[in-house]
């Protein structure tokens, strides 16, 4: 295995095809020959198959090697290929496969049912349907990531309507739709509900534009609905009794999440719905569902795996509290718990009985649970793999997490009150404790008061497995709290030791030096968020030149300008998008970029009234968003978005 990567393609026994073994020389190591042998004795697993496909897909083999491999593949009939492809579930693998040759492309095209589109303006809905006529599940993303933080105007775009219309017209048999940061109107939801008879799953994350009327349409028309998952959407509540619109025949629900809704819900309808959907595994209700209703629901659905509570306020001496405790004890399958927007801390002991099973705990919307109660609760949760909390937990609380949750893989600590500096918040101490106590940690989001280089270096040493590392100091340019130096060395240590790092967000005082480290070491980095950092164009250039796998780069308030932007324009075609706001980039440079790279959409978001059409090219642009696209400038852009 040192020098060879092997491909094994599973034998189709029924059809009697022989085994084929291909040994591809590892281009990285030797660059030497590709040997194709017919050797039925050897077996290699799917992992090797995958890596080989990537090798082929990314054209890392030489011409003659490729030719012999292709000729060998011609022996396979399409049915075999299709069967083999069925084992490939990740988009990445499927893409690699379809790059191999024309016939593979065709086979893959007709067999792909799940499509992921990371930017809804990168390609047209018609092209999607033309290429993947059998698509059943579509994932779409809309607005740029910084829209989450109010940096993108609400009416920027990202409409799902044209996609649904095209799929209706194209006769797609859509079963699943997952949307993130898109504008979804009630009209769209109604069209969706009425047009796809087999529709099963709707997942909306950070979307807006719809009301409970749209949800009512989904509820009443999608007869086979299995999943309705609303995560952090802004939904206007029309007080419509949308929950009671689920017909009595609806028993197929597996997952129902409406925790983000603000308004009242019809409790009787909810209870009846839960009672008849015996396959319900995930239920997250909103704060309008009181504790005694929760108790009745749990009594009827002890099979739940994922529970999001509503209001958890009650008198712990009351009868319904006792009942809740009893019902909870029967819910032994719950492994994921969230909610507690309103909570009486004294009610928390009711959930102690399920804590030892929990692998996911989300208390990041529970500002009413303070450090002491939080610590008591967490002491019961020694199987946790994923924990989301507010910074009221404090460094001490994180210390308890570190000593209790040995399986922890993901931790997110959110600020409880972004305007109050001081109070009970976390620092570098908590982070170091976690890294020392939780060796499996691979993903972190950490909002803290202060950080030090020494702490980050320790963290890097303790947890080299980070895939996602997002650190946010509440004061964005705060230096090392001890030495007053920039945090360059600390973040440098992180990228150096975490070889698999894919997502990174940085904050604190940072100079160009840190970007030098990123370019040099962060080879797997796919998304990088930069704010208030760097001192010159060099910083951005290090990243663009060094991080070969970068897909998304977002920068705000950093002194990167035209030189960095225009240095390697071809790079942007390998990336999904670049966001730059409040940087030093001028309008002229953006125009140049747009001119030279016709496959990029360079959009300026201009919200100030002072800037008219005849703006100086030297004018710095407030917000620039560029992305690669096959469809050219979008037609639904509002007035304040200029596509250059």
């Amino acid at each position: 295995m040192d020098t060879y990567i092997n491909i094994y393609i599973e034998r189709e026994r029924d059809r009697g095809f022989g085994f084929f073994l291909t040994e591809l020389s590892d281009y990285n190591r030797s660059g030497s020959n590709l040997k194709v042998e017919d050797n039925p004795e050897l077996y290699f697993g799917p992992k090797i198959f995958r890596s080989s496909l990537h090798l082929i897909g990314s054209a890392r083999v030489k011409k003659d090697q490729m030719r012999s491999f292709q000729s060998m593949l011609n022996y396979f009939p399409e049915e075999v290929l299709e069967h083999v492809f069925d084992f490939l579930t990740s988009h990445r693998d499927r893409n690699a496969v379809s790059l191999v040759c024309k016939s593979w492309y065709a086979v893959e095209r007709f067999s792909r049912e799940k499509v992921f589109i990371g930017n809804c303006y990168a390609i047209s809905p018609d092209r999607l349907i033309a290429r993947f006529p059998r698509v059943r599940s579509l994932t779409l993303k809309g607005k740029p990531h910084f829209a989450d933080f109010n940096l993108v105007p609400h009416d920027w775009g990202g409409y799902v309507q044209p996609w649904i219309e095209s799929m209706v017209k194209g006769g797609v048999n859509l079963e699943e739709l997952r949307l993130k940061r898109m504008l979804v109107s009630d009209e769209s939801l109604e069209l969706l509900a009425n047009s796809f008879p087999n529709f099963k799953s709707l997942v909306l994350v950070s979307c807006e534009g719809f009301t409970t009327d749209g949800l009512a349409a989904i509820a009443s028309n999608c007869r086979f609905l299995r999943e309705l998952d609303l995560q952090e959407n802004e939904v206007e509540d029309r007080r419509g009794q949308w929950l009671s619109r689920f017909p009595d025949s609806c028993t197929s629900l597996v997952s129902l999440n409406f925790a983000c809704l603000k308004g009242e819900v019809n409790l009787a309808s909810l209870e009846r719905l839960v009672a008849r959907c015996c396959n319900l595994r995930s239920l997250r209700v909103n704060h309008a569902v009181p504790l005694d209703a929760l108790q009745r629901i749990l009594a009827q659905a002890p099979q739940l795996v994922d529970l999001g509570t509503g209001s958890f306020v009650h008198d712990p001496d009351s009868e319904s509290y006792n009942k809740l405790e009893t019902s909870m004890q029967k819910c032994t399958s719950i492994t994921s718990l969230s909610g507690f927007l309103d909570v009486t801390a004294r009610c928390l002991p009711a959930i102690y009985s399920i804590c030892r099973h929990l692998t996911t705990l989300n208390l990041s919307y529970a500002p009413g649970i303070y450090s002491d109660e939080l610590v008591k609760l967490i002491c019961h949760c020694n199987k946790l793999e994923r924990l989301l909390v507010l910074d009221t937990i404090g460094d001490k609380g994180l210390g308890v997490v570190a000593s209790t949750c040995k399986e922890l893989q993901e931790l997110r600590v959110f600020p409880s009150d972004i305007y109050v500096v001081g109070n009970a918040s976390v620092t570098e101490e908590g982070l170091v404790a976690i890294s020392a106590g939780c060796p499996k940690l691979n993903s972190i989001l950490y909002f803290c008061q202060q950080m030090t280089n020494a702490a980050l270096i320790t963290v890097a040493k303790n947890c080299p497995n980070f895939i996602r590392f997002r650190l946010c100091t509440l004061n964005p340019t705060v230096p090392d709290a001890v030495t007053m130096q920039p945090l360059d060395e600390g973040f440098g240590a992180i990228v150096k030791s975490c070889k698999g790092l894919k997502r990174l967000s940085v904050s604190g005082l940072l100079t160009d030096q840190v970007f030098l480290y990123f370019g040099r070491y962060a080879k797997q980095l796919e998304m990088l968020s930069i704010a208030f950092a760097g001192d010159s164009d060099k910083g951005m250039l290090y990243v663009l030149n060094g991080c070969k796998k970068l897909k998304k780069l977002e920068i705000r308030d950093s002194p990167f300008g035209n030189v960095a932007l225009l240095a390697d324009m071809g790079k942007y075609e390998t990336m999904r998008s670049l966001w730059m706001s409040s940087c030093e980039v001028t309008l002229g440079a953006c125009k140049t970029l747009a001119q030279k790279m016709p496959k990029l959409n360079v959009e300026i978001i201009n919200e100030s009234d002072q800037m008219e059409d005849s703006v100086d090219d030297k004018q710095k642009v407030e917000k620039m968003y560029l992305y690669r696209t096959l469809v050219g400038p979008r037609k639904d852009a509002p007035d304040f978005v200029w596509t250059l």
Partner: protein
Amino acid sequence: MIMESIIFPTVKGMAEEDYFSGSQEILHFFDLMSPPLLGVEGGGRGNAPLMSSSASVDCISQSGLGLKERNYLGLSDCSSVDSSGVSNVSEENKSNLNLKATELRLGLPGSRSPERDSDFILLSSDKLDEKQLFPLLPSKDGICSLMQKSIVSGNKRGFSDTMDGFSEKKCSVFAEGKWMFNATGSDSGTPQSVIEAKLAGNAGKNVILSNNSSGTQPTMKKEVPTRALQEGHNKMNGSNNNSSAPAAKAQVVGWPPIRSFRKNTLATTLKTNDEVDGKPVPGALFVKVSMDGAPYLRKVDLRTYSTYQELSSALEKMFMCFTIRQCGSQEAPGREMMGENKFKDLVHGSDYVLTFEDKDGDWMLVGDVPWEMFIESCKRLKIMKGSDAIGLAPRAMEKSKNQN
């Protein structure tokens, strides 16, 4: 394109180049996770240096030609100020600036006194083209760009949608003013600080944001001697800077990067918790804290503390910007400095005392009654001027005696 040249000769009977290359491009868009095509990348890299240099030259010359006489934001005026002229002009400005604008004004967060506005306008009409909509300190590009950013951010649309968007918007202008004064202040300081002011944009942002109450004033860049700068800042900031610093913190749009959904949800929750009057919300006991001379209120949850010492250190942190100056304390920030001693300093050294209003509406000194009794009866807290608090203590003592 490079991809084609590698693959096509190798694929037997495959001549539809368009087809294939088309597919390759599309793939990019269908899957962001697909590894970069090395062929393409390699090609791009090869061309990069040539392209980049020519492109940037193009751009510069283009934008140079495109520079128009008309001046919409007054920015080009600024940036075209000859660097040799900078120091002179800013000297002049200094004398104009530091008067009213640097005085401490009281008022609601984000509010701006009219006089200060007029100061700005006067300034700008003195120095700059009347077409300019915003006053700018004639100075280096860095400052201009910062101003430009702030100007634009003052007009954000998304902003007004946030709950407190309006006040924040005003706030930002306020903070700009502050920043300018700081900058001029540092100009008058050491040569290093001049260099520091030249550092493009970033250094300036540090100042805007440098209100971390833990006292870790961001030092500028590593090449700048941090100590000297820090002291310089402390001196020139004075009480003025501190009074508005926390307000400035709240106004950086989109920072800290928390989803607005989360922000709104938590904000409403806290509000509802707080607004349940008469019916104590179990788990949390929020009371308002005001301070004489401070432009804003704070809320604290008394249940999160268990002793007077904890409470006083928390308040100390919150209002540090005022109290530190008042106490004349310049010691390094850290946990050691918190605690009761601090409030004693406050009481004896600087005429501030912590008082509370009890259920009966009487004002009393904090610390006179047992903690439990205190949290049960406290309606709100006030950090009063010592002179105003004379006569409070005895009553409190009496009262507690009576109750006992």
